[in-house]
């Protein structure tokens, strides 16, 4: 039973094989040309990224390990204190930075602000996206439109207006005292930084999650509902899994954006403890200790790698699920 089948498949393949081989030799040159042209076209931005992102990060990491010469030479000349290694990498810079209590509290504030912002922004975006999708009303579209407003406003302006708004002499304090409450101001406080981070991060999150939720076909939701699922069950079992990838993209971008932010904590936050973005600039410019600032940057990179890992995982998942579909 199996032999004839095998025979036919072998003979089939041998018939098919010959033209394929001929074809391949014919297109080899064309393929090489196609690949070459593709690479030629993508090479300018790739070069920019290698030269102005790749190299500074590698030399920056080497700087924190005590390699103070070469491309780091000029910065070393300009700095007030530098730790140099004697041939083998040293972690003394990191020990020095971590020994500083101020740095540890800044690091804690940075992580806290990032985690809270990511969670709140994702949650609000989901609520807005679901409301707009399920109610299908003009009101839903209006709310989506409102949530995108910060996209139109430069971050410096947004941060400044938020600082004024939540002062004790701003709307926050004034409305509070008119209603008979004493509300302590959020400006110049970490809570104000979180509020401003949520404000600036919301538009991108709402756009992406809304488009993810909108992409779930009506038919799937109806099918789930008709099979007896409650609305919340339909949302949880149909919409949430189908919009996982945009959600992870949102969380990644928001997380990395907040980690590396300077403007919002600089404008809205207290002088100390502040986020590492501000502390790095102060260390770099005011204290003139680029090596210490670089060590803080490397700590931020390590945190970002954790977030980047989630992004790559989501991409792999997307590739897998599109292969199945």
């Amino acid at each position, binding site marked *: 039973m199996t032999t004839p089948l095998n025979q036919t498949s072998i003979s089939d393949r041998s018939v098919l094989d010959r033209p394929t081989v001929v074809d391949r030799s014919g297109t080899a040159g064309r393929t090489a040309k196609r*690949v070459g*042209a*593709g690479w030629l*076209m*993508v090479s300018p*931005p*790739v070069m*920019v*990224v290698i030269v*102005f*992102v790749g190299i*500074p*990060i590698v*030399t*920056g990491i080497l700087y924190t390990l005590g390699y103070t010469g*070469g*491309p780091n030479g000029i*910065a070393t000349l300009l700095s007030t204190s530098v730790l140099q290694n004697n041939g083998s990498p040293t972690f003394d810079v990191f020990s020095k930075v971590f020994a500083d209590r101020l740095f540890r509290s800044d690091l804690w504030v940075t992580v806290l602000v990032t985690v809270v912002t990511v969670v709140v922004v994702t949650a*609000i975006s989901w609520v807005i996206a679901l409301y707009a999708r399920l*109610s*299908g*009303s003009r*009101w839903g579209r209006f*709310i989506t439109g*409102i*949530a*995108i*407003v910060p996209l*139109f406003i*430069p971050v410096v*302006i947004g941060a*400044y*207006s938020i600082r*004024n708004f939540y002062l004790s002499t*701003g*709307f926050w304090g004034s*409305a*509070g*005292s008119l209603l008979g409450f004493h509300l302590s101001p959020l400006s110049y406080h970490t809570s104000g930084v979180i509020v401003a981070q949520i404000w600036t991060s919301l538009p991108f999150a709402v*756009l992406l999650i809304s*488009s*993810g939720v909108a992409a779930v076909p*009506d038919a799937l*939701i*109806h*099918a789930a509902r008709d*099979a007896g699922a409650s609305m919340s069950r339909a949302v949880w079992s149909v919409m949430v899994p189908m919009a996982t990838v*945009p959600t992870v993209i949102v969380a990644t971008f928001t997380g990395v954006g907040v*980690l590396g*932010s*300077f*403007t919002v904590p600089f404008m809205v936050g207290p002088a100390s403890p502040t986020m590492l*973005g501000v502390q*790095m*600039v102060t260390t770099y410019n005011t204290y003139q200790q680029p090596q210490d600032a670089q060590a*803080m*940057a490397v700590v*931020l990179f390590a945190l*970002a790698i954790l977030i980047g890992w989630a992004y790559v995982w989501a991409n792999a998942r997307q590739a897998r699920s*599109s292969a199945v579909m």
Partner: protein
Amino acid sequence: MTVAPSLSNGAVDAASISVAADRPELSFGKRGPSPAERARSVLLRLLGLTVSIVLVLFIVGPLVWLAIGAFAKTWNAPSLLPQAWTLSWWKIVFAQPELGHSFWLSLRFAVSATALATVICLPAAYAIGRRRFPGRRVVLIGLFATNAFPKMGLFTSIATLFYSLNLMGTGLGVVIIQLLGTIVTMVWLPAAAFASVSPSMLDAARDAGAGPVRTFARITLPQAIPGIAVALILAFLACFDEAQGTYLIGSPTYITMPTQMYTLVDNYPAPAAAVFAIVLTIPSILLLLLVRRHILGGHLAEGFQIK
């Protein structure tokens, strides 16, 4: 109407299509509304209203507060409106020479960086969107490196390199910093736009005898233009509004409008700072209103999900 789970897929699809025809909008009430369901829908609507009011206050409140401040003569807390109004702050701010200077400087940097980004990124976007070549996905994800590192950490690393390259405090250094912020936008969004050009129209053009150049000019480009326009405007605004990198690399030689905000808010009276802030916001609002429809239509979201 309920569909038994044992039905085949095709039957479920047919049934749900007919249901969809009955109900153009997906709604909470499915069968006839019972009193409990009606109460729930009223409650939901009330909840929606409260949440929307809070959201509107949260998003728009600070901006309105800032805008009112630009017209305040005397405004003593606690009061939700100024006691006396004036337009004099506008005259005072427009009389400052720094305003015009920093505005032109911002414009020059932003236009240079966007033009550079166009030349560098659009061919790459076309290759990624329309061609399949080994390493394409690596490039696509690799360019994300510009956004994968926390911005200020990346900028301090670049500053150290810029000292060695003699780019610290130079205009070219500022342009490069602003260019870096546009790469992902200028590659991913146009790539998604190029990728979504209808293949059947390309085939039709080729069948009608159009060469590759003509096909590109008459079919590919017109269809990709909205996506490219969104990318260009977002890139320009990213440069125009870029403050933190420009501040680290450019100051004190080059003070653009957004970097001026950092010091201005503490050195000027609050109403003057409010006027300055409004002036700085006008270009963003005008340009984004131009492409608002496309951004809401999903060009931005599409660009970030290109495969």
